[in-house]
Structure formats: structure tokens, C-alpha cells
């Protein structure tokens, strides 16, 4: 008996041994192909990420000179100015799709979109210069607006140290003190959007890979195209991997110079690079700075497994850049001190010229990167340490040290605290400002020749400073290959944090934070789960998918099913100006101020474009109920033109009353973008007999889109809120019901839907609400092939005009600023193609495209005719 027990125990032990060895082998086998590439990354994956970045407001200082209430004499006082400008914020969207084909090819496509706005420094000066002109109300400073030319002269002592006014003597006038405190001149930017598309194609051998990639990044003032190629080679039973990569980038700057700053900005060095264009709007102050730049980059790397618990990577990179590397929006003040201009004993007066910055046309950069990853056995965690040394011939040495602790917590959760330290020396040509003892002659060439440096920049990115940041990444792997990742980081930029001291003064310090969330769906895992369930066939039994432009048209039929979807919608208006359904002439619009929100009309919309990205997660808790979450990301752009016969907006000097600034600002494209409203809804199945299907949708739209977007302050005038139609959301909670009927027999499918939007609040936080909306549509489609169908659809839409008006500063200049000129009745005809993959690796995918052709517009007020709308819909059920 005892013997048997012993034998059994032995048997069990050996079984256990075999089991664990098998397990190890299996894990190892999983590792073998491309062991050193990110192991968890799937070959078939879709990622959608939204991120927000925001900086803190910069500190700005000024000298306030109110009159003393008792003596009546000026009483100067250095103060911190309330900074009224919104800081830099960036909203970004990133979508990525990866797929594998023909066994050994891997393809990755990326789309990125950033919209940014806010105030950033354009130049730096001593506080005595009044670079930020104080805005005062009843002797109280309420803010400041940027000045490139000061109202008073700047004073220095004989050693060229800056001075500031610090007192008043009734007999000798102002008295002076050390004024070394530096201050940024901040300028506001209206929202702008950048879009980037890029791809990578990799071919894999057993022990090597070769890849090629490229892409394009487009923004209004900068366009960049790039290609890259590289390869990896595994040696030594895949314990060593060598890598090589090269890239070439070609970038063009076409920066529209701030028309506010142009009169005060010396562009002498760039005269042949600046072109004034004739804009559509009559007031012509366009001035565009052009520049070209090229970058070549080469890198080598080696990755080595050091043992069963650690690995190391060492890589080196050399980048050579040539051409226009200036930041076209940064200026440097040059103070020309005239020794003969003695303001007071020991006080010299100086004139100033602000120059566009000038950097060398060449830059050679070297980077060495080392990374060490160690498995921490008792905690099953990994420590990832990265050190990078950077050196260039602009005089910048930089060190980056980063450490991540990746801690799996079980049940699919992973938490990763991160810490990063960065320090850089200043560039040789970084100067907050320049000063010379040559007097200002007002002869452009002579003044330019007297600048004490060949190259100069006061861009704080080239100053000496350190940055410390800490963050957290939290990820959760759900079943069925869906995972969610959230990241947060807080970042501190400080001159005092520079390695070895001697960093920039604290006036340039700022902090920022960033937060993002990413949803990843591993299609290969999902595909496997599909293969084992029979509900897919159910899907395929349904007729063709509804046309791409129809919302909430599809219901999941089985409890436990999921669907993710992405819908892209593009809409453009670019036809004639309409009143009702008739073309209208400019003179009719000009006839009454009431056509333009109660002010004189100057402009009309010339074209308007909207892009909307909608993400859709749908879940069926039971077979009669679907829950749906739909966040959106939207960006819009609008160009305006002068109305024929519109009066001139008057001279700049008069400012606010004559609409000069508003009209001039209509010169260039207005853009907005960011997170739109988020819809949460439930679909209820009312009837289904396999031929006829009826479902009810009840949803709410949460006001997550911004409705407080303003145009930037310009020409000493706040331009107030941007046009109503350019805000990103409704600003109100909205009720979104729908009733959908679909039917199919053999190759024919048809459907109809009635849907509406009812605003649940009287007005949003800025004083208005959008009109309610009703839409009805009906379609028919025919299956040409097993996987392909075509559809035709009719749509009727009715939307009320805008109710209320902005309760904040708003300066109407055209019909788009009038609440009456929103909404109307619209008739459209839609043509669509739908493809659905019934079997194979990509089973469960569907792709639909639809073009909506406007048939008739009957608009409220005066509106631009519609050109059409495109919808693209991708869905994946699992």
C-alpha cells in the first residue's frame, strides 16, 4: 500500500516536471519568431487612441504705473500680470490598423490628427520693456496683450544691464532699478489641425526582417513627407538581434506671419522668402514665410539577451538636417543702446527692433541609446531602464534617463509607473534678447549689420533647462482580445532642474499634463473566438448591411456578442449662397444688418468642410437589447470671402468699433477640432421573423464637445467666440430616439428609419441651443455577389434654427454669425456599396461606403449650398 502511494507520488512529480517543461517549451516556442520585438503586440490589431495635452499658464510680469491717489505722482510697481490667455492645449486622435498577409508580410497603417490652440511665447524681453501691454480697468490690471514694439524706450545702465522704472521723484523724474527680470511676450493662436498618415510594410524571414515605410504630415503652415527603411538580423539562436534603419524627410514651411506683428517685425533676412498673397478678403495683409528643410538619419542597434531574466539594447543614431530650421513664429529683440542718449545719470536709452529668429542652416545630431530590461522574479514584474545621450553641433548636449516598472496584477490588469528626467544645455546661439552699444539708425541694412550675433533665437526649447516627469499607465486585457490602456503624465520644465546648474531663469518654467486612453482589439484572437461559435453564420444570414450613412441600423442578435465600429463622415458646403431654396446675391445679404447677427455684413462663407470620426462599441447583454457607446472626434475648417459691395472695415487705429480686426481675421482659414459629443444608447428589438425586423433606439448625447472655442485676440481686440457652426458639440444634453425597420428576401434588402434629436436643455453654457432635428430615410439594396451589395437611399432632413445667442463676446461679420441662418429642410439621394467578409481570416468584418448627393436645400436665413457628404463605415462583430 505504502509502496503504491510512493510510486504514485513519484509519478505525479514526474508528470508535473514534464508539464512544466512542456509549458516552458510552449512559451519559448511562442517567443521564437521575432523574440526581441514587442512580444505582446499582435499581428492583426486595431487601435484607437484619444489624448489630451495641456500646459499651465506662463507667469508674466510688468511694471504698472498708476498715479498715487494722495500725491498724484506716478507710483511704479513691478507686478505679476494676471495671464488671461488660455495655455497651449492639444487634442489628438490616433488610429492604427495592423494586418498580416501572404504569411510573411506585415502591414501597419497609422492615422494621426492633432488640433492645438492657446498662448505660447513669441519673444523675451527685460521687464522694463513693457512687452506685455497692460490692460487696465479702473487702475486694476486685468491682463496684458503682447507688444513687439514698446510704448516707451528701454533703458540700460552703462554696462548694458537692463533697468526698469521703480519710482518717481517730483524734481528729477523717474528713478531706475535693476530690471534683469525677464518676461515672455505671449501670443495667442486660434485652433489649427495637423493630419498625418503613414504606413510600414515588413517582410519576415526565419531569422531576419526587412521593412519599408513612409508617410505625410500636413498642417496649414508645415508639410512633411518621409520615407524610411531598415532591417533586423537574428544571430546566435536569436539571443542577439542586429538592426539597421535609415530615413529621409523633406519638409516645407509656409508660415502665415501674424498680421498683428508684421508692422513691428523686421523680416530683413528673409525678404526673398516672404511672399504676400492676395487673399479672398479685400483687406490684404497676408505675408507668408517659405522655407525648405531636409533630414537624413541613420541608425544601428544591437539587442542582446543577457540571461534568462534580462536583456540589453544599445543603439546609435546620426541625423543630418539642412535648410530652414527656424521656428517662423519666434522673434528676438535687439536693443540698440545709444551712449549719447543719457536719460538720467548712468541711464542710457535704447531703441528696439524685433527680428525673426535665425538659426544655422545645418545641424548634425548624434544619439546613443541604451536600454536594460530586467525581470523581477518574486513580483513577476519588469524593470525597464533607458538612458539616452544626445549631442549636436548647435552646442546642445542632452541626457535622458527613464525608468518604467511594469507590474502585472492578474486578471488582465497591468500597472506601470514611469519616471523620466531630461536635461539639456542651451544652444550656442540661444539669447533671451540681444543688446548692442550701436545706436539705432533706422537704416534697415545698417541696423541689421549691427546685430551682435550671426545666429540668434530666444525659443525656450533651445535654452538650458531640465524636465522631470512622472506618470502611470494602466492596462486591462478583457476577454475576446479587447484591451484598454490609459496613460497619465505630469511634466515639469524648469531652468533650475538642468544638470550642473546654470539653467534659464524661472520666468520660462512651465508644467504640463497629458492623459490618454487607447482601445485595442486583437482581431486574430477575436477571429479564433468566432471560429468556435456559430452565431457568425447568423450574421451572414441577414441581408446586406444598411448603407454607411444610416446610424443605429444594425442590431446584434445574440446575447454576449460584441461589435466595434468606426464611422467616418465628411461633409462639405461650397456652392452658392442660398436664401430659402434660391440663389441669393451679395447685395441682398448686405441690405440688412439683421442678416448678420445684427451687425454690418462684410463676408460670407466660401467653403466649409467637416470631418467626423465616430467610434462605436456595442454589446448585447440579451438577444433583445443592445447597449452602445459612441465617442466622436471632429474637425472643421471654414474659408470666407468678401461680400461684393461690402463697405471697407475702416482703419486699424480705430479698433473695436469698425470691425477691422474681425474682417481681417476672416482672411485666413478658421479651424477647430477635438473631442465631439458622446452618444450613449440602447437598442430594443421589437419584432423579428427573419424577413422583417423592427427595433427602437433610445439614446442621449452627452455634451463632451467644446462649445467655448474663441478666436484669438488680435489688433488689440478680443474677437470673441468663433462662428456657431464651428463649435465641436451642441453643448446641451440631447435625446436621440430612432425607429428602424429592415427586411430582406433572397438578394434584396430594404429598410426605413425615422430618427430625431431633441435638445433637453433650454440653452448651453454659452447661451444658445441648436435646433431640434428630424430625419426620415428609406433604402433598398441588392446583393451582387455573396460579399458585395449596392444600395440606393432617399433622405429627408428637417432642422430648426439656432435658439438664443452667445452670452459671451461675439463679433458677427457674416450670415454664419446669425442664429437665424442655421437649419432648414434638406433632400438627399444616397448611393452606397457594402462589402461583408463571410468567412476566412477576416470573417466578421464589414465595410460600407456611401455618397449623399444633395437634391434640394431649403435653408433658414442665408446659408451656403451643400456639396455632398461621404460616409465610410467599418464594423466588426465577434
Amino acid at each position, binding site marked *: 500500500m505504502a509502496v503504491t502511494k510512493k510510486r504514485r507520488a513519484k509519478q505525479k512529480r514526474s508528470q508535473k516536471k514534464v508539464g512544466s517543461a512542456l509549458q516552458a517549451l510552449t512559451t519559448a516556442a511562442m517567443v521564437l519568431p521575432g523574440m526581441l520585438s514587442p512580444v505582446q503586440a499582435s499581428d492583426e490589431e486595431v487601435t484607437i487612441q484619444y489624448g489630451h495635452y495641456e500646459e499651465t499658464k506662463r507667469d508674466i510680469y510688468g511694471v504698472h504705473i498708476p498715479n498715487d491717489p494722495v500725491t498724484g505722482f506716478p507710483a511704479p510697481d513691478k507686478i505679476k500680470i494676471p495671464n488671461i490667455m488660455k495655455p497651449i492645449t492639444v487634442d489628438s486622435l490616433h488610429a492604427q490598423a495592423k494586418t498580416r498577409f501572404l504569411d510573411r508580410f506585415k502591414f501597419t497603417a497609422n492615422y494621426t490628427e492633432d488640433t492645438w490652440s492657446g498662448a505660447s511665447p513669441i519673444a523675451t524681453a527685460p521687464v522694463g520693456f513693457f512687452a506685455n501691454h497692460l490692460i487696465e480697468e479702473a487702475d486694476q490690471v486685468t491682463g496684458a496683450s503682447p507688444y513687439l514694439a514698446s510704448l516707451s524706450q528701454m533703458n540700460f545702465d552703462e554696462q548694458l544691464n537692463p533697468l526698469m522704472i521703480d519710482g518717481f521723484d517730483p524734481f528729477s523724474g523717474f528713478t531706475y532699478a535693476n530690471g534683469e527680470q525677464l518676461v515672455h511676450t505671449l501670443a495667442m493662436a486660434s485652433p489649427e489641425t495637423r493630419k498625418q498618415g503613414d504606413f510600414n510594410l515588413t517582410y519576415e524571414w526565419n531569422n531576419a526582417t526587412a521593412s519599408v515605410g513612409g508617410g505625410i504630415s500636413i*498642417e496649414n503652415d508645415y508639410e512633411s513627407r518621409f520615407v524610411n527603411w531598415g532591417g533586423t538580423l537574428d544571430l546566435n539562436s536569436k539571443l*542577439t538581434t542586429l538592426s539597421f534603419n535609415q530615413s529621409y524627410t523633406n519638409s516645407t514651411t509656409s508660415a502665415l506671419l501674424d498680421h498683428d506683428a508684421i508692422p513691428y517685425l523686421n523680416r530683413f533676412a528673409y525678404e526673398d522668402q516672404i511672399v504676400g498673397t492676395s487673399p479672398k478678403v479685400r483687406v490684404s495683409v497676408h505675408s507668408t514665410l517659405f522655407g525648405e528643410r531636409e533630414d537624413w538619419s541613420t541608425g544601428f542597434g544591437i539587442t542582446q*539577451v543577457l540571461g534568462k531574466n534580462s536583456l540589453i539594447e544599445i543603439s546609435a543614431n546620426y*541625423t543630418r538636417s539642412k535648410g530652414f530650421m527656424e521656428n517662423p513664429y519666434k522673434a528676438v529683440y535687439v536693443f540698440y543702446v545709444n551712449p549719447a542718449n543719457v536719460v538720467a545719470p548712468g541711464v542710457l536709452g535704447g531703441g528696439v527692433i524685433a527680428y525673426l529668429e535665425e538659426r544655422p542652416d545645418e545641424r548634425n*545630431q548624434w544619439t546613443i541609446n541604451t536600454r536594460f530590461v530586467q525581470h523581477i522574479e518574486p513580483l513577476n514584474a519588469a524593470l525597464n531602464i533607458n538612458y*539616452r545621450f544626445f549631442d549636436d553641433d548647435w552646442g546642445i548636449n542632452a541626457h535622458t534617463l527613464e525608468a518604467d516598472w511594469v507590474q502585472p496584477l492578474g486578471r488582465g490588469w497591468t500597472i506601470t509607473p514611469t519616471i523620466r528626467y531630461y536635461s539639456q544645455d542651451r544652444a550656442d546661439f540661444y539669447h533671451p534678447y540681444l543688446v548692442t552699444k550701436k545706436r539705432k539708425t533706422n537704416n534697415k541694412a545698417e541696423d541689421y549689420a549691427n546685430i551682435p550675433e550671426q545666429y540668434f533665437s530666444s525659443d525656450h526649447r533651445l535654452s538650458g533647462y531640465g524636465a522631470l516627469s512622472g506618470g502611470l499607465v494602466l492596462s486591462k486585457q478583457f476577454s475576446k482580445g479587447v484591451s484598454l490602456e490609459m496613460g497619465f503624465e505630469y511634466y515639469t520644465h524648469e531652468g533650475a532642474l538642468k544638470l550642473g546648474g546654470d539653467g534659464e531663469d524661472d520666468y520660462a518654467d512651465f508644467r504640463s499634463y497629458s492623459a490618454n486612453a487607447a482601445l485595442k482589439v486583437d482581431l486574430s484572437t477575436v477571429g479564433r473566438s468566432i471560429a468556435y461559435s456559430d452565431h457568425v453564420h447568423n450574421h451572414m444570414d441577414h441581408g446586406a448591411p444598411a448603407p454607411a450613412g444610416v446610424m443605429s441600423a444594425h442590431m446584434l442578435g445574440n446575447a454576449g456578442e460584441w461589435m466595434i465600429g468606426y464611422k467616418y463622415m465628411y461633409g462639405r458646403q461650397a456652392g452658392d449662397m442660398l436664401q430659402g431654396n434660391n440663389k441669393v446675391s451679395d447685395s441682398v445679404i448686405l441690405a440688412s444688418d439683421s442678416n448678420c447677427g445684427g451687425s454690418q455684413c462684410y463676408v460670407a462663407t466660401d467653403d466649409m468642410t467637416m470631418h467626423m470620426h465616430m467610434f462605436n462599441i456595442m454589446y448585447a447583454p440579451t438577444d433583445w437589447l443592445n447597449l452602445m457607446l459612441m465617442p466622436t472626434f471632429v474637425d472643421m475648417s471654414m474659408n470666407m470671402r468678401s461680400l461684393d459691395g461690402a463697405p471697407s472695415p475702416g482703419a486699424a487705429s480705430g479698433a473695436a468699433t469698425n470691425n477691422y480686426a474681425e474682417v481681417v481675421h476672416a482672411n485666413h482659414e478658421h479651424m477647430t477640432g477635438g473631442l465631439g459629443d458622446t452618444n450613449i444608447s440602447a437598442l430594443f428589438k421589437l419584432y423579428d421573423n427573419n424577413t422583417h425586423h423592427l427595433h427602437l433606439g433610445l439614446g442621449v448625447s452627452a455634451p463632451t464637445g467644446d462649445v467655448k472655442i474663441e478666436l484669438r485676440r488680435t489688433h488689440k481686440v478680443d474677437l470673441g467666440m468663433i462662428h456657431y457652426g464651428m463649435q465641436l458639440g451642441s453643448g446641451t444634453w440631447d435625446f436621440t430616439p430612432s425607429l428602424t425597420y429592415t427586411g430582406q428576401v433572397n438578394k434584396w434588402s430594404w429598410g426605413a428609419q425615422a430618427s430625431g434629436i431633441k435638445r433637453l436643455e433650454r440653452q448651453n453654457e454659452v447661451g444658445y441651443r441648436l435646433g431640434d432635428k428630424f430625419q426620415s430615410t428609406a433604402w433598398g439594396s441588392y446583393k451582387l455577389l455573396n460579399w458585395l451589395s449596392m444600395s440606393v437611399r432617399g433622405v429627408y432632413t428637417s432642422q430648426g434654427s439656432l435658439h438664443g445667442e452667445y452670452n459671451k463676446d461675439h463679433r458677427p461679420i457674416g450670415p454664419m454669425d446669425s442664429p437665424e441662418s442655421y437649419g432648414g429642410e434638406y433632400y438627399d439621394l444616397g448611393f452606397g456599396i457594402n462589402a461583408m467578409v463571410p468567412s476566412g481570416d477576416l470573417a466578421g468584418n464589414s465595410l460600407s461606403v456611401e455618397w449623399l448627393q444633395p437634391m434640394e436645400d431649403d435653408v433658414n436665413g442665408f446659408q451656403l449650398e451643400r456639396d455632398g457628404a461621404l460616409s465610410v463605415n467599418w464594423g466588426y462583430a465577434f
Partner: protein
Amino acid sequence: MIAKLQILIFAVLLSGCSVAPWERGNLAKPQMALDSHPTQTEFRGHAYGSREAATGSSVGAGGGCGCY
């Protein structure tokens, strides 16, 4: 001296360790990836790249001007 050191390092890298396939279980774990959160790296890298002078290896992958 430096040349000798280089040879030594290289020798250590290439031959100093041998990890049999069945000993690579830990190395295969997701947390041991060189970059365990590429999505985060890219997002943060874009912010660093538009605020810091040492752009380095991000060249060749776009990113735009960051001129603000």
C-alpha cells in the same frame, strides 16, 4: 585600451551567455518587451519632441512642425 574593451564587450555579448529555448519563459512575458507600451511611447514622444531640443531618433517618422 578602448579597442580591447570593445572586443571584451562584444565577446561577452555574443558568447557570454547562452539561454536555452526552455529557459526563455520570463523573456517571453509581455512586461519584458523592449517597449511594453508602444502606444504610450508614441503619444508621449510627440509631446517631448515638440518641447525638447533633442528630437533624435524621432526624425523620419513625421510629427509635424510643433511650431508653438
